[in-house]
C-alpha cells in the first residue's frame, strides 16, 4: 500500500496490478471488464469526431469537388443555375467575429481584472454570477431579443447617431442606408454572447499568476494598476489571448442569434450597417429552402469549412491557455 500512496491518485490502482499476490482470483476478470468498458466509452469521442468529419465532408463533397477551393473565394450564389461561391459568408463570418471581439475583449478583460483584483467581496459574487449567466442564455433567446429590441434600437438611435451626430455617414464603414438587420447588429449580439467566455478564461488565467509576481511589483513601489499592467498582464498574456481566440471560436460558429439579426444577404458590402451573411447563418437559413442536391451539398460544404476553421482556432486557443495556466515551469 505504501507503493500506491507514493503514486499520483489517478494511477494508484495501476501498480497494484502487477504485485497483486493478495488479489483474490477472479477479481481480475471484473477489473479487466471494467477497464475495457471505460476505455470503450473513452474511444467513443475520437470515433465520434472522425464520424463527424466524415459525414460533413461526404455531405459537402459534390460541391467541393465541383467548385474546388474557389468555392470559398467566389461570391456568386445562384441556386437556380447551380453556381455557388461562399465568399460573402466567409467575409461576413470574419467581419462579424471581429466586431464581436473588438467590442467584447476590453469589457471582458476589464471584468476579469475587476473580479480577480479589485472587486469588493460583496460585489464579486453577484457580478461573477451575472456574467456567468450570460453564457447560460440560449442562442435563440439572444436572437429574439436582438431582432425585437436591439435591432430597432440600433436603427433608431445608434446608427443615426454615428451617421449624423458624428458626421461619419460618408465613411465607407458606415455608408449607405441604415438597415436594422446588419453586420453591426450581428457583431453586437455576438459580442454579448462571447463576453462570458473570454472573461471566464481571463479570470482563470489571472488567478494562476503567482502571488509573488504581484508582491514583487508592489514592493518595487508600483501602484495597484501598475502592478496589474506591468507584472500580472504580461505574465497572463498568452492565456488571455487564448481566451480571446476561444471567444473567436464561439463567434465563428454561433448560428441562431446571428441568423436572426444579420439580414441574410449574399452581397459583400463595405458598410457595417448593411445586411450580410455568416457561414453558420447561411446553412441554417437556406437549409429548409434548398431545392436541389447541389444546393444542399453547397451548404454542407460551408459546414465543412466551418468545421476545419473552428478546429484550428480552438486548438490554438487551448494550447495558449494550457501554456499559461500550467504555471511557471523551470
Amino acid at each position, binding site marked *: 500500500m505504501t507503493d500506491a500512496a507514493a503514486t499520483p*491518485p489517478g494511477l494508484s*490502482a495501476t501498480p497494484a496490478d502487477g504485485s497483486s499476490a493478495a488479489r483474490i482470483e477472479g477479481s481480475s476478470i471484473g477489473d479487466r471488464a471494467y477497464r475495457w*468498458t471505460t476505455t470503450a466509452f473513452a474511444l467513443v*469521442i475520437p470515433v465520434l469526431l472522425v464520424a463527424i468529419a466524415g459525414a460533413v465532408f461526404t455531405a459537402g463533397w459534390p460541391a467541393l469537388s465541383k467548385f474546388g477551393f474557389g468555392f470559398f473565394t467566389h461570391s456568386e450564389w445562384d441556386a437556380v443555375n447551380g453556381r455557388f461561391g461562399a465568399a460573402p459568408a466567409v467575409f461576413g463570418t470574419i467581419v462579424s467575429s471581429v466586431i464581436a471581439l473588438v467590442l467584447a475583449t476590453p469589457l471582458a478583460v476589464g*471584468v476579469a481584472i475587476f473580479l480577480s483584483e479589485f472587486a469588493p467581496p460583496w460585489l464579486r459574487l453577484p457580478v461573477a454570477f451575472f456574467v456567468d449567466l450570460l453564457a447560460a442564455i440560449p442562442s435563440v433567446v439572444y436572437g429574439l431579443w436582438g431582432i425585437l429590441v436591439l435591432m430597432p434600437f440600433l436603427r433608431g438611435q445608434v446608427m443615426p447617431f454615428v451617421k449624423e451626430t458624428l458626421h461619419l455617414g460618408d465613411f465607407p464603414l458606415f455608408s449607405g442606408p441604415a438597415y436594422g438587420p446588419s453586420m453591426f447588429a450581428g457583431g453586437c449580439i455576438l459580442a454579448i454572447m462571447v463576453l462570458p467566455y473570454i472573461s471566464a478564461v481571463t479570470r482563470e488565467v489571472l488567478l494562476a499568476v503567482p502571488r509573488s509576481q504581484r508582491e514583487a511589483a508592489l514592493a518595487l513601489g508600483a501602484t495597484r494598476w*501598475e502592478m496589474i499592467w506591468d507584472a500580472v498582464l504580461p505574465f497572463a498574456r498568452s492565456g488571455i489571448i487564448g481566451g480571446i481566440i476561444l471567444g473567436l471560436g464561439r463567434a465563428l460558429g454561433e448560428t441562431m442569434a446571428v441568423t436572426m439579426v444579420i439580414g441574410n444577404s449574399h452581397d459583400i458590402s463595405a458598410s457595417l450597417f448593411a445586411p450580410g451573411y455568416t457561414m453558420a447563418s447561411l446553412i441554417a437559413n437556406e437549409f429548409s429552402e434548398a431545392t436541389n442536391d447541389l444546393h444542399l451539398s453547397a451548404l454542407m460544404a460551408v459546414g465543412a469549412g466551418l468545421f476545419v476553421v473552428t478546429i484550428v482556432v*480552438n486548438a490554438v486557443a487551448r494550447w495558449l491557455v494550457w501554456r499559461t495556466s500550467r504555471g511557471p515551469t523551470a
Partner: protein
Amino acid sequence: MSPAATGAGAARSAPRSYRDTLSRSSARTLTRRRVVNHAMIGLTYLAALIATVPLLLILWYLVSRGAASVNWAFFTEIPKPPGELGGGMANAIAGTLILVAIASVLGLPIGIGAGLYLAEQRGARLAVAVRFLSDVLNGLPSIVLGIFAWQVLVRPFKHFSALAGGIALAAMMIPLVTRATEEMIRLVPVSMREAALALGYTKWRTSLSVVLRTALPGIVTGALVAVARIAGETAPLIFTAFGNQFWSLSPTQPIAAIPMQIYTYAMAPYDDWNRQAWAGALVLLALVFVISLAARFATRSRFGLGGD
C-alpha cells in the same frame, strides 16, 4: 487613455522605472501615477457595470413582454394556424423534454464512462489524446453536429426524427459530461480509494461504489449543466428534429421543441406569434435557470453539508 498608455508603456519597457520615478520623485509624476491608477481601476468597475447591463435588459424584456402570455393555454394547447389567435406550446415543451431525455440516455453513460477512464488513466497516451479531442468536440459549432446527424440519420431514412435530434444533442453533451466527471473524480482523495482496496474491494468495485459514488454529486452538477446547455439549442435541431406544429411524441417522427418554436415565432410577421415567442423564451430561460440552480445546489450539498 493616453496618460495611461504612456506611463505604462514606459514602465513596461524598463522594469526599473518605478525606482527611477521614485528617486526623481517629483510630486507631479506621483500624482499622475495615482490618477492613472484610480482612473484604470474605475474603468474596470465601469466594465463590470456595462457587462451586467445586457443580462438585466434581456431579463427585463423577457419578463415584461413574456409574462402576460404565460398562461394555462400556453402549457396545454398546441399552436394554432397563422391568423388564429391563441394556442400554446404544449407539444414543444413535451418535445424538448423528449429530446433532452434521448440525449441524456445516450450522452450520460458515455460521458461518465469516458470521464472515469480519463481520471484513472490520467497519463496514458490515449487519455491525453481523448482529453484533447473532447475539448475539440466541445468547441465545434452545434450546427456542425446537426449536419452530422442529418447526414447519418436523416438522409438515409429520408425523414426527420426526434431520435436524430437527440443524437445530435448527445454529441454536444458527451464532452461536457466527460470533463466534468474527470474533474470531480480527481477531487476524490486517494486515501478513499486506498482504504477500499485495503479492505479487499476489487478495483472495479472500488471505482464504481466508492470513488464514483463519492464524486456523484459533482457529476450530477456537471450533467445538469450539460442538460441546461442542450435544452436551449436550436441549430442542430433544424436539420434533425425539424419541428412539428402538431402533437407528436414518437422518436421516429419530426418533433417540436421550444427553441425552434421561438425561432419560428420570432421571425414571423404576426404580433401574436411574437408575443408567444417572448413567452416561450421566458419559459425556456426559466427552465435553464432552474436546472442551473439545481446544479449549484447539488455541488453545495457535496462540499458543504456532506455528512456521510
